[in-house]
């Protein structure tokens, strides 16, 4: 009897662990029409085969990289690429001491933690100016259901003067965001999107296709034809990450680069190091492409420990990687998914209250760190912790640097 009971308990434990581990839903319904048409046009044998690949979006994002954004160059978080300004006069309201409500998907990775600090610092500035009275926050801890009820609670409370939403997933959160729009409160969505255009503004950097293509193009430009590249991805099924790989896959498929493997790592350093070590046992790896920088240093160390020359490396603007890059002098690029976007929604709320125009889709610039400005970013962030992001854009806020160094 006893082992049976214990086995039951073990099964329950495993189920519970699985339940707590993965609650992400994969948004598959995004832009179904565009997807099918793009898939038909796409040439065979390329990244366009991916069900996530939308040729029109790919072309748009790649073009956006070369467009000069409007707005002040020293405040990239206020810049916008090809903005379509919309009038928000009907959402304007008088007076100060507004209540700003923020439904956050989570702070479960260092990128989000860094951005969250920046956002709080920006809110403090506006609180001192008397624009914002209360800043009400709920953190959904990556749980779609929790975020839906968080948003509902804001709507039902009825005293939010603006609701900022950073959605956890695309399809599942769409109805909740639409309900918030219907309440008449200005809604600002940033980072990941939803399948609706009801919000006052949707703020995001250029996007995943541009991110993925930048790294892949860097490898193609810096490696000899016939070189081998290992692609390390965090997890499948999340649109922002799928777009990155779909774009990279397309670039690789149109080049002479040999992709020896595409592996999912969960961003776990130990797994990354083990995977790279095994690939190095089987043969040479000349380049590493990553869809996010988490654990990049572990991949570099795998080459060191195997006594192999450094690969050409596509990482992110995370400080640990930038420092490793500088120490080793390897050929690398620090991809950027602009962290400073966390400031923009707060400033957008201020603009909307004042009745100023905002772009309906606020596309922020997204420029990688390359060897020309690496030293500059290392210098500017010398005191920052290793899991900080170089392009966090908070240098001019009053809490700088303590708010980011003492986290």
């Amino acid at each position, binding site marked *: 009897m*006893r082992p049976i009971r214990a086995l039951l308990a*073990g099964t329950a*434990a495993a189920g519970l662990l699985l339940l707590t581990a993965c609650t992400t839903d994969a948004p598959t319904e995004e832009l179904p029409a565009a997807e099918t048409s793009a898939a038909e046009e796409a040439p065979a044998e390329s990244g366009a085969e991916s069900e996530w690949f939308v040729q029109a979006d790919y072309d748009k994002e790649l073009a956006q990289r070369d467009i000069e954004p409007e707005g002040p160059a020293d405040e990239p978080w206020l810049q916008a690429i090809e903005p379509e300004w919309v009038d928000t006069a009907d959402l304007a309201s008088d007076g100060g001491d507004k209540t700003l409500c923020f439904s956050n998907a989570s702070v479960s990775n260092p990128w989000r*933690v860094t951005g969250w600090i920046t956002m709080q610092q920006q809110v403090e500035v506006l609180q001192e100016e008397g624009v914002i009275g209360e800043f009400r926050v709920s953190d959904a801890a990556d749980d779609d259901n929790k975020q839906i009820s968080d948003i509902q609670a804001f709507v039902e409370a009825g005293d939010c003067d603006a609701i900022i939403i950073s959605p956890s997933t695309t399809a599942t959160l769409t109805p909740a965001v639409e309900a918030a729009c219907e309440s008449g409160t200005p809604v600002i969505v940033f980072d990941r999107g939803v399948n609706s255009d009801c919000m006052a503004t949707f703020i995001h950097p250029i996007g995943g296709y541009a991110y993925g293509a930048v790294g892949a193009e860097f490898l193609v430009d810096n490696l000899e034809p016939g070189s081998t590249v290992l692609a390390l991805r965090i997890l499948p099924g999340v649109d922002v990450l799928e777009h990155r790989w779909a774009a990279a896959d397309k670039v690789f498929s149109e080049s002479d680069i040999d992709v020896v493997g595409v592996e999912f790592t969960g961003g*776990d*350093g130990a797994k990354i*190091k083990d995977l790279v070590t*095994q690939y190095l046992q089987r043969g040479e790896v000349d380049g590493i492409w990553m869809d996010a920088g988490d654990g990049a240093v572990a991949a570099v160390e795998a080459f060191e420990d195997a006594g*192999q020359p450094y690969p050409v490396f596509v990482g992110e603007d995370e400080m640990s990687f930038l420092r490793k890059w500088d120490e080793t002098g390897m050929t690398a690029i620090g991809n950027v998914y602009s962290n400073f976007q966390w400031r923009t929604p707060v400033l957008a709320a201020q603009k909307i209250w004042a009745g100023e125009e905002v772009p309906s889709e606020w596309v922020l610039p997204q420029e990688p760190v390359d060897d020309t400005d690496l030293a500059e970013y290392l210098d500017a962030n010398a005191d920052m912790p290793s899991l900080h992001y170089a392009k966090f854009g908070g240098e001019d806020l009053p809490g700088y640097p303590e708010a980011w160094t003492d986290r």
Partner: protein
Amino acid sequence: MTLTADTSPGTARGTARRWRERLLSGGSWTVLALLVVVLAVIVVINPSFAEPVSLMAFAKKAAPLVVLAVGQYFVIVSGEFDLSVGSLVGAQVVIAARLIDGEEALTWPVLGLMLAFGLLVGLVNGLVTTLLRVPSFIATLGMMLVLFGAIRLWTGGAPTGALSEGFRVLGRKGFPDVPGQFQVPYALLVALVVVGLAVLVMRRPFGRSLVAAGDNDVAATYSGASVWWLRTRAFLLSSFLATVAAVLIGGYAGVTAQVGQGLEFMAITAVVLGGVALGGGRGTVVAAMVGALALEALFTLFNQLALPSTIRPAVQGVIIIVAVAYAARRRRT
């Protein structure tokens, strides 16, 4: 169902038959057969795996799970579970990174602090289970959540800081220290020492009483054993070894937000794969070690086969269920 060699004399043919019977009979020997088969398949697919450098890289990777499996063995054989080890590994690495923050001089003091913290967690697990009579499944599940939440609270969601080079030597380096050449990883030595000591401990009165408590705690009590203190010590050992594993894992790959996730499940799987009965009272520590190696070998095989990552958990689950069911055959008869 022990790994103790049969000492009775016999002919070569008799010996061969006995080995065949053992390997096919289920129990601890089955997992050894599984390990050999998996390693053989890997070598067939990728002959370079058999090179000493590659084998040592495998040993370095597998060492932390071996250490964790030994710790889990103590708890499981005494009739309990420890679900908190994964969270504890994560917590220890995050604590170390934040407190050391790259400062070489702080390595030893922080190691001492980690040791104290690990033992404290083990003591709480043990006392809550034995004295408060909360089932260990719930007590350690609670501890897992408490540690996970407390670390999130303390770090604001994601780890900060960095480990010192000194801290990372055990998990990353080896002897002789020439990258790319053959070296014996320190992690392998640590794992061997842990397994060796565990084998000795299990032969001492403590070990025998622990198995007895797992088999039948009422009988063990009547025979004069202090069951609550035996089990508490098992939890202390588990948390201590989780701390050792944290030093190895942190050393191996540095600090990431995901470190430690799911390790409790892997450690329990390794122990069960080794033929140790859930519910206690049966199985050897060496078999738990072989179970950990077999599990790591399985992961390596999946990589070599380039199995799509989406199907890996399913294949892994089937193999584990089949192996454990096969090993349990004899028990039912």
